[in-house]
């Protein structure tokens, strides 16, 4: 097991190095120049060629690209993500602030997805071919395909504008004003949990149907066990394995997947920061954000892998 963990950690480190290379060179090699953008956006001052060169030197953008990469990676390893080109703020602290907002939403929607999706799937499977089953199946098929940014706008129209029940945008820290925070989060969370709920319900239903046909479940029935015991104690445990796989995938995407919702509801999270930074070509921010999002994905995948390795010894010996 120890060898397995070390090997996986090593592989994860390699993936992170490749991610950093990809994002760094993608930013540098694709067209666009942040310094020129900065200069042209500042209409008051006229810049001479020399001043532009000085600016370029200030941000180290005149060095050879390999040296720039090594400088940046050196900083990242020391926990310094650099300074924004556009507004000279430090990237690290700002990103941390945004990260917690995104993770707050992401984790809540993940939890809601599982808390609602799993029972729905179990009920649909147990009451197979009844109206409950049909409703769950149809709704979950719609839920995995509905464009969530569009769904968000429908919610805004109904609850925000028509009935004026909920605030339509913004994010307040739950520490400052818990009640306002809760009211602000209801609609974004509804949009963000839609896919997890639907996906989990679909997966749970089909894997429960599979399990309910097994011989050992028939044995449980014939022993005269109550339905509740058969379903919750015997079937659910095995039926959960594929659901856990799916949950792992959903968990790894919780930060990156909410760009559109952050835009719709004006939530100052990571996704929104990425959209503005990438349009301003603010290299340090874009690199930092992508690296962080990738790190979360890799970390969650690692956890899922370890869990599997622990549950199923065969996997350790691939």
């Amino acid at each position, binding site marked *: 097991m120890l060898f397995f963990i070390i090997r996986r950690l090593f592989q994860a480190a390699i993936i992170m190095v490749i991610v950093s290379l*990809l994002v760094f060179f993608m930013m540098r090699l694709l067209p666009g120049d942040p310094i020129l953008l900065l200069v042209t956006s500042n209409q008051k001052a006229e810049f001479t060629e020399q001043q532009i060169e000085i600016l370029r030197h200030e941000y180290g953008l005149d060095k050879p690209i390999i040296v720039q990469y090594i400088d940046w990676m050196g900083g990242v390893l020391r926990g310094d993500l650099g300074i924004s080109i556009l507004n000279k703020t430090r990237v690290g602290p700002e990103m941390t602030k945004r990260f917690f907002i995104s993770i707050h939403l992401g984790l809540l929607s993940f939890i809601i997805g599982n808390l609602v999706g799993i029972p729905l799937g179990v009920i649909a499977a147990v009451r197979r071919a009844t109206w409950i089953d049909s409703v769950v199946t149809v709704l979950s098929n719609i839920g995995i395909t509905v464009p969530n940014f569009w769904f968000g706008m429908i919610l805004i129209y109904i609850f925000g504008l028509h009935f004026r029940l909920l605030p339509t945008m913004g994010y307040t820290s739950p520490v400052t004003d818990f009640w306002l925070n809760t009211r602000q989060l209801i609609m974004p969370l509804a949009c963000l949990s839609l896919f997890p709920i639907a996906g989990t319900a679909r997966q749970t239903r089909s894997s429960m149907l599979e399990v309910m046909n097994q011989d050992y479940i028939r044995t449980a029935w014939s022993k005269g066990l109550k339905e509740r015991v058969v379903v919750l104690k015997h079937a659910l445990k095995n039926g959960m394995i*594929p659901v856990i796989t799916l949950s792992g995938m959903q968990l790894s995407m919780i930060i990156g997947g909410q*760009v559109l919702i952050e835009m719709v509801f004006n939530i100052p999270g990571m996704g929104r920061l990425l959209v503005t930074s990438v349009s301003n070509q603010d290299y340090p921010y874009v690199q930092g954000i*992508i690296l962080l999002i990738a790190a979360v994905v890799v970390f969650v995948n690692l956890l899922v892998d370890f869990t599997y390795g622990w549950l199923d010894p065969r996997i350790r010996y691939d």
Partner: protein
Amino acid sequence: MDGLTLGSAMIRKAEDMKTEDTIIEDTIITDTPFHTSEFRRFSRVFFSRGVVTFGIVIILILIIVAIFAPLLAPYDPYDTALSQVLQTPNHEHLLGTDTLGRDILSRIIYGSRTSLEIGLTVVFLGASIGTLLGLIAGYFGGWPNIIIMRVMDALMAFPMILLALCIASLLGGGLKNVIIALTIGLIPGYTRLMCGQVLTGKENDYIMAARSIGASDWRIMLRHLTPSCFPPLIVMLTMVMGQTILAEAGLSFLGVGVEAPIAAWGSMISNGRDYLFTNPLLSFSPGFALMLVVFSFSMVGDGLRDALDPRLRGIL
């Protein structure tokens, strides 16, 4: 994760995850007499669920609407009329008009062209490149496998929409750049699928036979291995089509999609945001079209999977 872990993860998933209803599988195994032709078996399973037929009908309508857009649209989608801005639905404009007085219905009809064009191009390009890379990685193993699959792992470490957003935004939006961005986002999925398929497929005896009569590597890869991987590829093609159209709409919603006057559903949804209270149809109607199309492709993909190869449940 390396190639091997991926392969094992896929097999693990194939064993664990059974994504759909088991009723269909029962019909395949028990009710099909062996003299039934393959096509009849396929169509019976395929059309056994009403929702799949519904999806097919919607996709056919989409294609017809996209082809005959100029005949079907009541107005020119680019015709601005400042005297008629922001009209609510009426007899002349069934879904009203937008901020420039353009007819919403006509723009939705023309928007289907944008969606379909981008969807088809991206899926075709992504599938071709991804399949080729996966074929190479799976067939040759060793270093090609390690390099290709590691890069794909790295690409898969962020959601498709983010990757596409960065690339499209840096390249500067527009039809061509959106296609490039979305294609790059699609490649890893195909490569992974194909690599897994080839890893198991190349152990077959007929591959050994082909090699022993002196077939070249490329001939084995293209003539013997690729055709055997068609069922999962076709299923993935259909499923990914909907996601691509959705991602394209997401990009144009964020303002990095196709250029401004071109009708695209995502930017129409976005344009209607400021008028949500007074004229909700501005955003709602293109979004509804989008949802219908994405839903249809997803359902048809499900149906194809059940009819072509039910073992793929869980992988796709």
